[in-house]
């Protein structure tokens, strides 16, 4: 679900970098020494997990796990996301260096929103199954939010890209569903086995 090099208007690329710098700067202020290895090691595991492709019908989708990243890393998720996107851009050439800022904002903002809402819900609810369902819904909604932002950006990047924007949204729409199911199952297992992994558990 990345925007590749060469597609976007220069102003959007620069704006993306400015916003990404703000998000990363805010996250860096909260980073302690022991968080560096945590962000890196968990970020690497998320990166590797996102390489898995699920067969859905005749097609296949690969996960982004932005909702799960948000719930596990909380405010630090933008650091793990920009790192993951950087490596996807330079190792697999998915996305790109000129659009790295825009892509990281498109992933980080939904991840932070998911973290905020899940943190709030976590304080109120204690039932694992209910929390997992909510986590799944939030994760699916994070993908939808990210998708809407991509569509808006492509729509306003030029009249010529509108058809591509529609195709992009249809092909990635199924991802929201798969991502929701994956996150719900993953959160259920994490809550049962290692709830300390979740930022909300550590905060409360």
């Amino acid at each position, binding site marked *: 679900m990345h925007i590749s090099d060469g597609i976007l208007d220069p102003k959007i690329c620069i704006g993306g970098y400015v916003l990404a710098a703000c998000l990363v700067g805010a996250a860096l202020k909260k980073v302690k020494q022991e968080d560096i290895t945590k962000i890196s090691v*968990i970020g690497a*595991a*998320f990166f590797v997990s996102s390489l*898995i*492709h699920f067969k859905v019908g005749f097609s296949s989708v690969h996960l982004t796990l932005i909702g799960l990243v948000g719930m596990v890393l909380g405010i630090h998720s933008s650091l793990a996301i920009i790192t993951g996107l950087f490596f996807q851009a330079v190792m697999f050439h998915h996305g790109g260096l000129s659009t790295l800022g825009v892509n990281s904002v498109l992933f980080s903002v939904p991840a932070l929103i998911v973290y905020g809402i899940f943190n709030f819900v976590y304080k109120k609810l204690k039932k694992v199954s209910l929390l997992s369902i909510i986590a799944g819904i939030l994760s699916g909604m994070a993908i939808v939010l990210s998708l809407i932002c991509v569509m808006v950006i492509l729509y306003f990047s030029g009249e*010529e890209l509108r058809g591509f924007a529609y195709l992009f949204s249809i092909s990635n729409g199924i991802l929201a569903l798969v991502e929701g*199911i994956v996150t719900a199952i993953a959160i259920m297992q994490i809550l049962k086995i290692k709830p300390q992994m979740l930022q909300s558990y550590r905060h409360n």
Partner: protein
Amino acid sequence: MDLDNYSNIKSPIHSWDARLKCFTFFGYILISAFVDNFYSLTIITVVSTLLVFFGRLPLKSVIKSLKPLLLLLIIMFPVISLTSGGEVIYSYGVIDVYRNGIITASVISIRAFSIVLATIVLFGSTRLNIIMKALEFFKIPPTISAIFLFTYRYIFLYIENLNKLLTAAKLRGYRLLHGIKHIKNTVSILVTLLIRSYEQSERVFYAMRLRGFSGSLRSIGSFSIEWLDVVKTGIFIIIFAVIIWIELL
């Protein structure tokens, strides 16, 4: 998949001082993303091709790296050409091919190819730790470069771990990656990987702390700028100026 497989080759690009090389390549990538004019597009195509030539990276590996971009463009080109609207240059039944669409898709393709080629040459010719050290010179926070280097080191470890977990599960008779029906098996493997990584992150931190880790990674070696490096960077600054001048015209 490794970034710096060919960083030991001897070439004019490899011998370039990393700080000047990063400055030049990132500048080139940003300028290439903004190019619209036919002449500027020709310049970036020629420059990127020359970068690959002077970088002496194996052509087979470069072409292999271009595959994902090629796949994206194969889908994107017809979609944009058929849906952009504007002046129709060819019509067959209900299908119209638009002039604007072909121009936009061509511009995007040339920009994307040029940028990806420059990225391949930059990261193929310089080790990642050297690039990070060079970026710290441009005031990138050391925490960021430490996170990038740690992540890079653990990506390969986790790919190996994931493959082991998948093989073990398959040998036990689990069906994986076969659609929604078997999703629970696959997610269990992902969660195992994530929990192991979480537990490992604490051990890694303590191990690093015992080795004197204080929030940033130190690397041996220092940079030195030769007059040839200045000449190479100077040539690129002239190219940037020409492209900006053409675009402004």
